[in-house]
């Protein structure tokens, strides 16, 4: 079975720091894959690499059968890789609906001249974009806020808006960067449900999270990073009891405490 995404010894160096160190990973189509690790492990940089925001220092990346190493972000987005951001990057001066409509940019083709003359084709395209955007908003539950300025949304809704913008173009791979940050338990549960629904529509998901409950509940497989390197990979059950993982998160003392707890 061909993997959806393959990373082969992908490396990203910043000056003297190696943020991502020879990472090799396979994402199978249709899975919800978790990416966890302590702070500074290189998770966001990995997402930056996959989404094309940063170019790798070395290594290769394949999307389906195509070598997309070093492709710029907008090209990868057009190929179907979309993402959300850890620190939320909304277009704050635009409305909620306009934010999502931008997600469909690569699906449109009309330019300056058609916009000025307002050809029938342009009007049809705008209608399509508006329709699909409203549908995406409905999926995340924000349809009633469509015309409000994005800046007016509450924090939790802002995260949903980013997700709506990312899924409106029906991506094949969705990268979520700590979507549950700042959410309480019930909000996190709703989020898991949303991720599952999105996944059910055929979107492969790579989920970076610190919220362990969300990871364990949503993911079928998990990769653990530490210091930019892959530490472990496996099912949630495997990862939960993996000694090296526990040590990375809790330190040597924490590991011994855990071991003695099981003994």
């Amino acid at each position, binding site marked *: 079975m061909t993997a959806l995404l393959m990373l082969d010894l992908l490396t990203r160096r910043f000056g003297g720091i190696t943020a991502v160190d020879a990472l090799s990973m396979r994402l199978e189509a249709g899975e919800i894959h978790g990416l966890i690790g302590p702070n500074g492990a290189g998770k966001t940089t990995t997402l930056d690499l996959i989404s094309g*925001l940063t170019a790798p220092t070395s290594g290769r990346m394949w999307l389906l059968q195509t070598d997309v190493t070093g492709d710029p*972000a*907008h090209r990868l987005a057009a190929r179907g890789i979309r993402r959300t951001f850890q620190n939320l990057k909304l277009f704050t001066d*635009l409305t909620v609906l306009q934010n999502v409509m*931008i997600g469909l940019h690569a699906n449109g083709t009309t330019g300056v001249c058609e*916009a000025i003359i307002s050809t029938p084709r342009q009007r049809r395209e705008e209608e399509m974009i508006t329709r699909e955007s409203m549908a995406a908003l409905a999926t995340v539950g924000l349809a009633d806020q469509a015309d409000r300025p994005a800046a007016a949304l509450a924090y939790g809704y802002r995260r949903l808006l980013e997700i709506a913008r990312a899924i409106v173009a029906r991506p094949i791979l969705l990268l979520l960067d700590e979507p549950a940050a700042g959410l309480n338990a019930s909000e996190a549960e709703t989020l898991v449900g949303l991720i599952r629904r999105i996944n059910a529509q055929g979107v492969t998901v790579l989920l970076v999270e610190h919220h362990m409950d969300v990871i364990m509940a949503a993911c079928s497989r998990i990769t653990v990073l530490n210091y930019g390197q892959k530490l472990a990979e496996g099912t949630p059950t495997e990862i939960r009891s993996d000694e090296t993982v526990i040590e990375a998160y809790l330190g040597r003392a924490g590991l011994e405490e855990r071991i003695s707890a099981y003994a």
Partner: protein
Amino acid sequence: MVLVLFILVPIVYPQEYVVHVLGLAIIFAIASLALQLLLGFAGLLSIGQAAFLGIGAYTSAILTTTYKLPFELAFLAAGLSAGIASLTLVPITRLRGVYLAVATLGFTIIIHLVLLNEEWLTGGPFGILNIPWPSLGPWRLRGETSIYYLCLAILVATFIALRRLIPSRFGRALQAIMLDEDAARASGIDLTYYKSQAFVVAAVITGFAGSLFAHHSQYLNPNDFTFWKSIEILLMVAVGGIGSFAGAVTGAFVVTLLPEFLRAADEYRMVIFGAMLIVFMGLGHRGLAGLFSAVAVRVLQRRPLAEQAPAPGLSRQ
């Protein structure tokens, strides 16, 4: 409504000088609209607009004087040549903020020097004289009033075109780029392509304004197109309010007409102008446009301020 006023003015004040100055203001309003697209909606600070004004003006002038081509062709060619010239700026679109501005500044200075020195083409420091009145088909538009209405028509057309452009896919892409480049890239927007396009669109519009300028003044001098002129256009946009097309037009009128009104103050004219500029800047980034809408709200007292307040990037009536 405001348009009606503009249409009536030359009838009410038929003095040639008044109409001439107003025509000039309209021409600069067109150039300001172009800069507003760049600055207020794409977030690109360009101090290079005077270069495109000059390229358009000289193209139009040379084609009508030396080659005796009709005005309509010269007008279109002016926009075209300015647009093509702007393609040289494609490489610098990846520069950010101030660096981009400085590069456009350099561009303006270079173009000015070319206009000044290439006498075989531009007449050098002597400029070009006896530029004919514009023509539309068989009619020759003689007289200040006719030109005024032509310029007004172009201004209105530009205004409508730009207002249509902003809520479109292209306009959204520009605003996305201005608000968050990373998110724009992640949404599939090619930054270089759209920034370059914005420059080209602005250059073409400014080129058209240049053509009007040439046939309005009927005499061209390279010193009309120094980087200082670029700064003046920037002032017009800033005074009127960044992010508002109506503001850009207002600003153009203020900056063009204010020195005229200050003629009474004679030698203190520019000193007062400078001071007023500082005061205008104290109005905040919505400039005069913001001031007017704030006043309008208080006068009309109908809808709450939050709904009325215009924000850059949102479509306005």
